[in-house]
């Protein structure tokens, strides 16, 4: 497929067309090949500077972006909230403009506020890549999930994807919903009614509170982390009850189709949303997701970084 990429920023999957998503995936295919070579580095972004600006803590995503940038030969600087001037009261806009004044070409932003990457993208000439904004979007996670499904199942169209857990506060869920539905998948959201409001049905998905009815028909089960450190207690009565009602236990996993994929964006809580044996089982592609994340992020940095002036 040939198409021209003309976005300097990647803010979310909602704004992308199916063609654009497929183009990123195909670009990622090529970069995945690079990862199998003895020399894993290409000169695509040589001379460009990438700043990993993580206002909210992250290990996996930051490391993945950092490694992706290194493999593209970009220069990388990491800044976290605690080491930035945000703690001194500087506004996000001022911090970012200072970074741009240092001629940063690409800014990878993780932020607790929905819309923060768009806010910066509208104000900066640099590329802005959303590495997760509040409960809004986490587009590279959505892309790597889709990439992994497509790699294992050969397609996305007509697959039944079940996303389980804390949907309300999940940017991963939203990026998956936007991306998967554009590519023709059927998406079912499962979780307690407090964390999966019916309002989500207006996004073109099905909402269910009964995991046992949904699992036998699933082609993919994507389990989201139950973020109990952040949950206000009124959303569900306890972790034990959550596991009883919604956990992917060994027993429940037996009802899955043999070729159903088990996914998780990590970090996993073993024994809470997923039993340890299931996380490590044959149907689990959790570590493939991590590997594919690198290829997807290389593709995104390559495409957007090539547009930024």
């Amino acid at each position: 497929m040939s198409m021209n990429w003309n976005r300097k920023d990647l803010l979310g999957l909602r704004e992308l067309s199916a063609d654009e998503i497929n183009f990123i995936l195909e670009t990622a295919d090529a970069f995945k090949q690079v990862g199998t070579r003895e020399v894993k580095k290409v000169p695509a972004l040589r001379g460009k500077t990438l700043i990993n600006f993580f206002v909210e803590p992250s290990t996996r995503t930051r490391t993945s972006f950092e490694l992706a940038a290194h493999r593209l030969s970009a220069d990388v600087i990491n800044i976290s909230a605690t080491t930035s001037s945000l703690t001194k009261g500087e506004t996000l806009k001022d911090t970012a403009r200072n970074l741009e004044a240092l001629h940063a070409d690409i800014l990878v932003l993780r932020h607790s506020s929905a819309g923060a990457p768009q806010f910066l993208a509208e104000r900066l000439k640099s590329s802005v890549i959303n590495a997760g904004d509040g409960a809004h979007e986490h587009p590279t996670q959505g892309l790597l999930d889709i990439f992994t499904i497509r790699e294992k199942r050969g397609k996305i169209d007509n697959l039944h994807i079940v996303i389980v857990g804390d949907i309300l506060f999940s940017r991963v869920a939203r990026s998956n919903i936007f991306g998967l539905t554009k590519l023709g998948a059927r998406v079912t959201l499962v979780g307690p009614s407090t964390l999966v409001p019916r309002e989500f049905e207006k996004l073109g998905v099905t909402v269910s509170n009964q995991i046992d009815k949904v699992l036998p028909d699933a082609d993919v089960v994507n389990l989201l982390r139950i973020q109990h450190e952040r949950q206000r207690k009124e959303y569900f009565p306890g972790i034990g009850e959550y596991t009883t009602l919604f956990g992917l236990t060994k027993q429940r996993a037996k009802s899955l189709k043999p070729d159903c994929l088990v996914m998780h964006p990590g970090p996993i809580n073993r024994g809470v949303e997923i039993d340890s044996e299931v996380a490590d089982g044959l149907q689990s592609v959790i570590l493939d997701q991590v590997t594919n994340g690198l290829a997807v992020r290389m593709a995104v940095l390559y495409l957007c970084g090539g547009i930024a002036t």
Partner: protein
Amino acid sequence: MSATVIRNGRIIDPANKRDRVGDLYIADGKIVASKSEIRNQKSEIDEIDAKGLIVAPGLIDIHVHLREPGFGHKETIESGARAAAAGGFTTIVCMPNTSPAADSPATIAWIKDRAKETACVNVLPTGAISKNIAGEELALIGSLGQAGVVAITDDGHCIQNHELMRRAMEYARMVGLPVLDHCQDYDLVGNGVVNEGYWSTLLGLPGWPAAGEEAIVMRNILLAELCDHHIHCQHVSAAGSVRLIREARARGVKVSGEVCPHHIALTDEAIQNFDTNYKMNPPLRSKAHVDSILEGIADGTLSILCSDHAPHAGFEKEVEFDQAPFGIVGLETELGIFIDQLVHKHHKIDIVRLIEMYTVEPAKLLKLDAGTLSVGTPADVTLIDPNLEWTVWVDQFQSSSRNSPFDGWKLKGRAVRTIVAGKTVWKL
């Protein structure tokens, strides 16, 4: 001695059931009955040609944040009053969430002094219901009354303790002060920043459910009955609030509600680009809510129009959406938006009722000697061209702040001259 004749305007004076073309006479800052009462007729009579214009009692906005004392970088009493004049307002009622909060007679005295020195329109302060607007103990409501507040409110905040609110109502009744309330249940609203619904779900922004307003409107209705005292619900945004107020008023409960222009001109769809000029409290709601608000205006359930003029500096608004302060400026756009939307576009009310909602209704609520063209009252007059087409440009605002979502909007209808006590304080 000064005298003015406003000639050939359509004089709309709802308090006196007057709507006819004629001349209005002003002498020594007051409305007079006829030309013969203008002494010194020889040389000093100002003639204003009002042909094709509406001559209305000076408009009143009962919900304005003037930001002084404490936040002069957003607005001052002087600049806010200029913005009011440019919007057609001769009287504005300012909210007490200043720094310090207007919870003491000393602060009220300071505001009144400052207004006297610098403001070109009448500025009437409100006082806080609770000390420091903290919702914990009653402010000096009696002393605030003596200092000249026209009402009490904790606007921007809402007293969550129903017992405290009950005692505030009872006490205010004794003092003769109406109570205005910003209706927000803190538990239901949580950290919500936008209407809970489709767009909050899509964008992952914390939702502010309509029930968070409706629960407090219901509480207020119960307390108005219990205490036999008037409570006025500020900036009503939710369909359920309209229903509750409608039902209560039909039973004779002393409750009323006001509407801001953004809650009828915009829906929560506008937040999708995370532009903080669409962030206000209560938030923009869905079309179903907007339709209910329009019906509430049409049937008289919601009886007062106002702006909730909430200036913020550019650097304060230009931040992450959930971290930006709530509120938009409104004094210089509200009349245009309401005429355009309510009279021209949706045909919900006529211009006479619109003027009534900006004059007689607020004057009645706050017991003000304003809002009429009765002989002997201060000559506060607004000249309105209901058909003038104009474009909003925030750069031309008199306000110190620019935080408006209406920049570039084309509107039909606006004030063209504002007269306070017989003196023109602004004209187009």
